């Protein structure tokens, strides 16, 4: 059928996109991932002594975010809800993720879960995870055979028949 489609209701809103804008966006290496990525997106950094995890959870009440840490893993859980009293059919556009979400990551090294701290600002959760004492590189003394301890098996040859 020719003519404008009015079935969507009142929509005086059109996105402004210039070709120049598109050209610049094509340099964005994350563009292809934007629509398939998990929620919330996580970045993990390290300072050597600790890991720093950042999660983008805009609009979440920090009191409703569940954070669980073990020496090897970190789990974040929550639910993003639509504003109360807004009917589904009143939406003209829906791009933001809503609903229950959960992410679990395995940490690259053991952390001291008792000293983990978290803070939430401007929709970004930052978790600081100090590495466990035992996880830091340390010198291991080798014992020679005959000194009472069993010999150290290197394992390279011993594993084969």
């Amino acid at each position: 059928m020719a003519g404008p489609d009015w079935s969507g209701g009142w929509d005086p809103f059109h996105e402004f996109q210039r070709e120049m804008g598109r050209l610049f966006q094509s340099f964005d290496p994350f563009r292809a991932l934007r629509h398939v990525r998990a929620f919330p997106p996580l970045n993990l950094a390290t300072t050597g002594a600790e890991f720093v995890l950042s999660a983008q959870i805009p609009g979440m009440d920090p009191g409703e975010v569940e954070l669980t840490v073990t020496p090897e893993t970190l789990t974040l859980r929550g639910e993003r809800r639509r504003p109360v009293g807004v009917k589904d059919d009143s939406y003209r556009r829906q791009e933001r993720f809503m609903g229950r979400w959960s992410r679990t990551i395995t940490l690259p090294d053991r952390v001291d879960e008792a000293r983990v701290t978290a803070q939430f600002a401007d929709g970004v959760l930052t978790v600081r995870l100090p590495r466990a004492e035992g996880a830091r590189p340390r010198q291991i003394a080798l014992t020679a055979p005959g000194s009472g301890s069993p010999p150290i098996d290197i394992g390279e040859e011993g594993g084969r028949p």
Partner: protein
Amino acid sequence: MSDSHPPIRVPVGPPGAGRSRGDDEARHAAQARPAITPPIDIHEGPDGLTLEADLPGANESNLTIQLEHNVLTLDARIDEPDADPARLIHQEFPIGDYHRSFILSDDVDRDRITAELKDGVLKVFLPRTDRVRARRVEIKS
């Protein structure tokens, strides 16, 4: 975790409000970081439209909303915490500036647009002009 804070009112200004225009253009020319298109929702209520945008990391000092003729533009400059010497080992989201523009029709009452920002979510209310509301009532009856 910090306690939740009340929403911040973000003024919707004419071009150049908030920060200098020339400075802006110099930044865009450099294009050092990716420009991120934030996801948005738009829903319609009896008095107008509400736009919500996810802008994690944006706050009162780095977000500008401009209205130039009929184009509404959201811009937020997000800085990496440079005091932090942390090295990224896994990355799922880029650190960059947010940018998105919209064309408003004459049905939006531009003088009464309001915006607020809370916990990284921007909410912009775009009221319908009285003229449109009156016309709508006519059609219904």
